[in-house]
């Protein structure tokens, strides 16, 4: 039944007469993005979101053929790569997009950190963002095992071993994640469940909150721009200017993904044999390498406590503090320059980059 008392005279009438969302439309019409020398960094959140959309679509397509059992997982991925039409493309895009998404997420996180976007009133955008980063890493970790090849099996085994070093609950956590004492078919099924059900649900819920907060609060302007004398920075309409530029970025990303998938297709590898010894130089995916390399430098015991336990606890504490940085950086909250946290941010980036390079070079030797 047509609502005759609507105020809307927008086209298409049949829609707006039924759904009075004029207010929302006006909001998006007025939505503007600040233009300044750091505007380029605003695109990274959207790029990460675009890559997640690619993951969702290619993931659903892979789900049509993938079988999450120890016996069939590898064969099903092999089937996708060799027999399914464009299966090789979907799988390679999914793998490359996963890596690009993690990279984009890290850059987005560090750019918002260095631009102090976490300061009041955007504290919870930062916290939801940190959780989104952890979930993205969990996606990468759980997805890595699913092809059930040699590298992914042994990589998962090595990576999950560190969990046991957490005091008190370490062993229970290890058994929970592995579905048993060792990495097995139970681990595969479990990781599959996390990867296609639990993590997408969590990510979607957090993403909605994260995006909602960005819409309601608008884009943060860095203190260095805000404190400049003179008029306030110019703005550009979100629709159509910013969204078209976003789309341009997404198009370039899509082109890059197509090139990577076609020229450097993702390897199938060799089927995992749990009874074989681990291949020499086994290491986790690149985004965990800096943690892996740090563990290698920690001595076996520190003041008669397990070095590994101290390292894992330190990583956890650093992660928690990182998520809580809006409540720690008081100066930024007051709109003042906060060089200490800028240095911490640059230091963290340098540490991660250097340790990752060192780990890559060490394994090549």
């Amino acid at each position, binding site marked *: 039944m047509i609502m005759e008392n609507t105020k809307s005279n927008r086209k298409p009438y049949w829609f707006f007469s039924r759904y009075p969302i004029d207010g929302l439309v006006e909001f998006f019409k007025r939505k503007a993005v600040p233009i300044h020398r750091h505007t380029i960094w605003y695109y990274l959140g959207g790029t990460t979101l675009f890559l997640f959309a690619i993951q969702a679509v290619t993931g659903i397509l892979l789900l049509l053929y993938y079988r999450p059992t120890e016996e069939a997982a590898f064969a099903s991925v*092999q089937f996708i*790569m*060799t027999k399914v039409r464009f299966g*090789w493309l979907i799988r*390679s895009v999914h793998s490359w997009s996963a890596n690009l998404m993690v990279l984009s997420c890290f850059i987005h996180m560090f750019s918002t950190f260095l631009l102090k976007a976490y300061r009041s009133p955007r504290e919870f955008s930062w916290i939801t963002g940190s959780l989104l980063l952890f979930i993205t890493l969990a996606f990468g970790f759980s997805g890595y095992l699913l092809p059930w090849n040699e590298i992914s099996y042994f990589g998962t085994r090595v990576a999950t071993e560190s969990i046991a070093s957490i005091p008190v609950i370490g062993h229970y956590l290890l058994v929970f994640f592995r579905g048993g004492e060792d990495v097995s078919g139970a681990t595969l099924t479990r990781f599959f469940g996390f990867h296609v059900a639990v993590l997408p649900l969590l990510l979607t819920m957090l993403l909605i909150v994260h995006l909602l907060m960005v819409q309601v609060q608008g884009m943060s302007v860095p203190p260095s721009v805000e404190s400049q004398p003179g008029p306030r920075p110019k703005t*550009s*309409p979100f629709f*159509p*200017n910013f969204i*078209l*530029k976003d*789309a*341009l970025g997404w*198009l*370039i990303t*899509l*082109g890059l993904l*197509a*090139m990577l998938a*076609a*020229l*450097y*297709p993702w390897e*199938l590898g060799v089927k995992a044999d749990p009874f074989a010894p681990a291949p020499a130089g086994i290491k986790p995916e690149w985004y965990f390498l800096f943690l892996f390399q740090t563990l290698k430098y920690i001595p076996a015991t520190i003041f008669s406590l397990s070095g590994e336990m101290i390292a894992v606890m330190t990583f956890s504490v650093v992660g928690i503090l990182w998520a809580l940085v809006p409540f720690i950086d008081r100066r930024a909250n007051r709109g003042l320059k906060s060089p200490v946290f800028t240095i911490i941010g640059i230091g963290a980036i340098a540490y991660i980059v250097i340790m990752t390079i060192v780990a890559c070079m060490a394994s090549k030797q």
Partner: protein
Amino acid sequence: MMKLNRIWVFVVLSVSIFGSSVYGEDSCVQCHKTLDGALSSPVNELANDIHAQRGLSCASCHGGDPVAGLNGDAQAAMNTKKGYLGVPATKDIPKFCARCHSDETYMRKYRPNIATDQLAQYQTSQHGKLLGKGDKKVATCVSCHRAHGIRSAKDPLSAVYPTNIPKTCGRCHSDSKYMEEYKIPVDQFNKYRQSVHGIALLEKGSRSAPACNNCHGNHGAFPPEVSSISQVCGVCHLHNLELFSKSPHSRAFKQMGLPECESCHGNHEIKKTDDAMLGTESKSNCVGCHDQDSPGYKVAAAMKKIILQLRTTIEQANTLLAQAERAGVEIGDTKFVINDAYNDLVKSRSIVHSFSTAEVEKTTSQGLKLAEQALKEGKEALKEVQARRRWLVMVMVIVFAAATLLYLKIREIEKKGQA
């Protein structure tokens, strides 16, 4: 008092008898460990000796009365009237050991399935025959097994453990001065070390490879005679023996007195086989006997042709598949096909021993079908690579065009906005 003395004698005797039957408290050991050089070395080696581990003592082999020697009276212990045999002469060593080792009733106590025909075998061997003629230089039991510190043949440190046997035989057989009077080659060990068997056993530790005793025998060591070489090789290479014995070469070689397998493969320096051994080129084994235009020459050429054809097709397929794999196309299934083709190639090389082109062709034609299938799949994989590259170019053109249009639109909108 007399009763007390008797009790004491009884106690002392019991302790001595009991003590003398426990290893380490033997009066032979007690005395000989205080001596120097060769007289004390048997005691030092007792810990590793299988006889001592099974509860036997010095007297078990050498006789005598160790109990009598408990009070330090060596002469009483080494009393010939008490059965003391001393160190046996070289010519007597086999019979010395055979007193127990040829006695099945006795040996059954220690290991029911142990062989007890060593002496009988030894007496048929070249070593045994020469020993019987008074030659003291030949190997006797102790030359290989040692006199004391005799380890089980299953012990990797034993001189007769399979990986150690070539070196043990080589101690004499590679010594040109020692072997001068026998006028036989002394290069067997060196040749064997470079052979496919030697590399397998000595470098790779593969226990399936033969050592000297597998072909020549253990105790009845004698080179295999000309007519039985194929039977000896056939112990492991059974399929080749069956093919060879039904082939025309079997009768021909027998008539000509040729040493069967050795004629083409050598004896000690058996190298890894090569397709160059077959065919009509100057380096092949076939042209050594078969003249041009002879039936054998034609068979050699025909067999070589079909095997080479299969090998070449497999190599071509492998090259294409490797290219495709490097370019990112998955070729897992085709790898199974090429593997089967390769297995047929290996089989056909073995079937060469039938010296029948028709027999070889049965397997090569099967392998060729598979190799051609793999070649076809390899070509398709490369076509797929090209197709992907073409599609990529098209997609990139579309993406570039769309990006350019988008960029122009954005510029237009920005200009309008500024205006």
